[in-house]
């Protein structure tokens, strides 16, 4: 093996295709996007160099600020929800349902494979107000509460969006964390039980520390995916009302492709890349210690 890895030609042959693919698919578009962010214009008119004008505009654009804070708020809430719900389900699978968990796992995982647009339609019907009440408003009516037009205000639209995305994705995180939990040796659990640990103490002092590596992976997956949320918002609220539920990705899409402002759209795309990079590095930094080695 050493002789192969010591041979520069062999290394080039082994790494070359992947490197070329990576550069072509990731690096070139990122650099290209950066170049576009220095220009204004479109493909018909041509592009004019504006230097840092797009960046200055981004800095002072209230819509961009709103999209940025919405994205962070959404990412924090959804990540917390996905990890907590997923972990709770995983604990349920391992410690309560045990071998009988297959059916429940399948049922909980089912929404993951459904197309986002279908799920969005389902939830828009669930929370419908007009022309007829959906199930949620019907329940509110039975309970004597007021009808709620969920999609007419930013706050209630956000709640529906979060509930929908949690329902849609929790199965994936439950399975991911379940895979981490089943890797914990039975002997460690048994030893803790012999020492008198049980219930919450067992989970807090044994299970959680031993499943930290997979928890960190799940947090990185979840936070990055939440920062890039697009399809569920577009299908459920279209970013509205106004721009109350518009994340950075949707703001970038609207700016680039609906307002045909490619330079400014590229600047927003760079901001998204930067945010994802900072978040990932921050999470990695906080878990620099090799947790698998205790």
């Amino acid at each position, binding site marked *: 093996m050493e002789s192969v890895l010591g041979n520069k030609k062999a290394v080039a042959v082994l790494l070359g295709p992947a490197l070329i693919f990576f550069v072509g698919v990731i690096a070139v578009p990122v650099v290209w996007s950066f170049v576009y962010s220095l220009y204004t214009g479109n*493909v*018909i008119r041509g592009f004019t160099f504006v230097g840092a004008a797009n960046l200055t505009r981004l800095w002072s654009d209230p819509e961009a600020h709103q999209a940025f804070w919405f994205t962070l708020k959404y990412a924090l809430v959804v990540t917390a929800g996905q990890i907590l719900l997923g972990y709770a389900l995983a604990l349920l699978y391992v410690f309560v349902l045990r071998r009988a968990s297959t059916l429940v796992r399948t049922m909980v995982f089912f929404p993951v494979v459904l197309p986002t647009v279908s799920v969005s339609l389902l939830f828009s019907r669930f929370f419908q107000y*007009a022309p007829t009440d959906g199930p949620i408003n019907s329940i509110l009516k039975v309970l004597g509460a007021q009808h709620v037009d969920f999609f*007419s205000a930013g706050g209630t639209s956000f709640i529906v969006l979060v509930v929908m995305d949690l329902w849609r994705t929790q199965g994936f995180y439950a399975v991911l964390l379940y895979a981490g939990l089943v890797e914990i040796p039975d002997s460690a659990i048994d030893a803790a039980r012999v020492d008198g640990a049980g219930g919450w103490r067992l989970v807090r002092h044994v299970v959680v520390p031993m499943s930290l590596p997979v928890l960190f992976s799940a947090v990185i997956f979840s936070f990055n995916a939440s920062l890039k949320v697009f399809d569920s918002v577009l299908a459920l609220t279209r970013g509205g009302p106004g721009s*109350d539920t518009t994340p950075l990705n949707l703001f970038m899409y609207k700016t680039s*492709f609906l307002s045909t*402002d490619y330079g400014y759209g590229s600047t927003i795309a760079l901001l998204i890349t930067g945010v994802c990079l900072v978040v990932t590095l921050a999470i990695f930094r906080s878990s620099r210690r090799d947790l698998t080695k205790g």
Partner: protein
Amino acid sequence: MKSKATRLASLGGWGGRKSATRLASLGGWGGRKSATRLASVGGWGGRKAVLRRPVFWYAVLCSLALTVSACGGSGGSAGSSGVKDGKALSVLVTTENTSVPAELKALANGKCKTEATALPLDIQQSPSADIQQKIQLLAGQDALPALFAGGNSFIDKGGDLQKNGQVLDLDKALTDLGVNDKITPAAKSTLKQLYSGTTPSLPFQYNIEGIWYNKKIFAEQHIAVPKTWGELLAAADKLKAAGITPFTASGATSWTISRWVGAYLFRSLGTNAMLDVKEHKAKLTDPQYVAAAQAIQDLGNKKYFTDGISGIDYDTANNQFLTGKAAMMYMGSWLLALVNDPGKNKIGDAVGLMPFPAVEGGKGDINAYPANTGAPTSVNPKLFGPKTQAWVKCIATNYASDSMEQSGTFSGFVMDHPVKNLPPLTADVQQRIDKSTSTVLWFEALFNNKANQDAGGYVVKLLTGSMSAADYMGLLQNDLDTAQ
């Protein structure tokens, strides 16, 4: 000194001079000399290489250019001006536009059969959300179809496509073809207002907008057709008190609400209300403009519109009016297609149309209807050869009567023969169009893409009171000031 060819090759990690020679020899160019010659074509070679055989390379380049240009135009036919037709009359319109493709197909199988035999019709459709991006890409490659749905801001005078010479001047073209008089004066007036005095779009449709009302409900509640804004508010009050929803609109199709703002502006400030904004003579943040948005917000505050308007889609709004669940609705004359369909219209002859009422003390004329000429459709001057010209001439001559007979819809072309047995309401609308001496545009007509998006995107917030009238107009003015 190392030659540029060698340096070029070494950039890619191919090594030195030997590699450069090897690179050239891969293509069968021979040895070291050929490598130098290859480099000289792109201007990379040294002085000696460039001077060695320039005539030979110019000849090669010229022959290549001639071959390419000869291949590019195959299948086309040239007119007297040298402009060639495409292989077909390619038409690119939105997927949502069903009437224009249907009518063009009907013409191709009927009155324009000769033209369609010479140049077959080829309709392509793309969702409205993507079509302007597609148009941009095609325009960037100089590959626009013969007829295409160019966005207003692109085809307007000073717009990107006009500047690039990718939009045919239809005023001149139709005059040359002897059919300029086939566009109705009302449609011409609307086109000139919309496109700064130019005619870059074929008026496939012509629609006026107003408030459609339920005559039966009005009669039962003893309400006369309102002529002023005050009378309209009084009518809405009376209806609301009687438990009837005065107005319906679609929050999902938000222009059904934002058009109220524009109509109010044209009545309060006159025909030039929005043109003044475009020409920077006024701002949407001026008090009289904010007052229009405030007037519409007041309708929402008084709960005159259907409850839960954000969830109402376009079909539901139409359905609410045509089943008698709402007394009034702002809409264009394209609604006649549903009104004349007994399967959709459950209130029968009770449908009436009134012009948007006058605003007390306003400068606008109640008889000036907001009007449009349908989705903009431009002609590509580079494909306007003799066969395309024949097609356009045939369309201008036959479209109006044919579309009225086939689907009961109005167009901006003159009818070549009167259509008999029109339903009474359709005939009434036709008369209003014929009598109309002036028209006004609609709220978003002169907006750029960003302002257009936001006018619709935020209007539900305006109507439901979660955004102030001043903020709404301020946001749109900001879009006009900053976006492209």
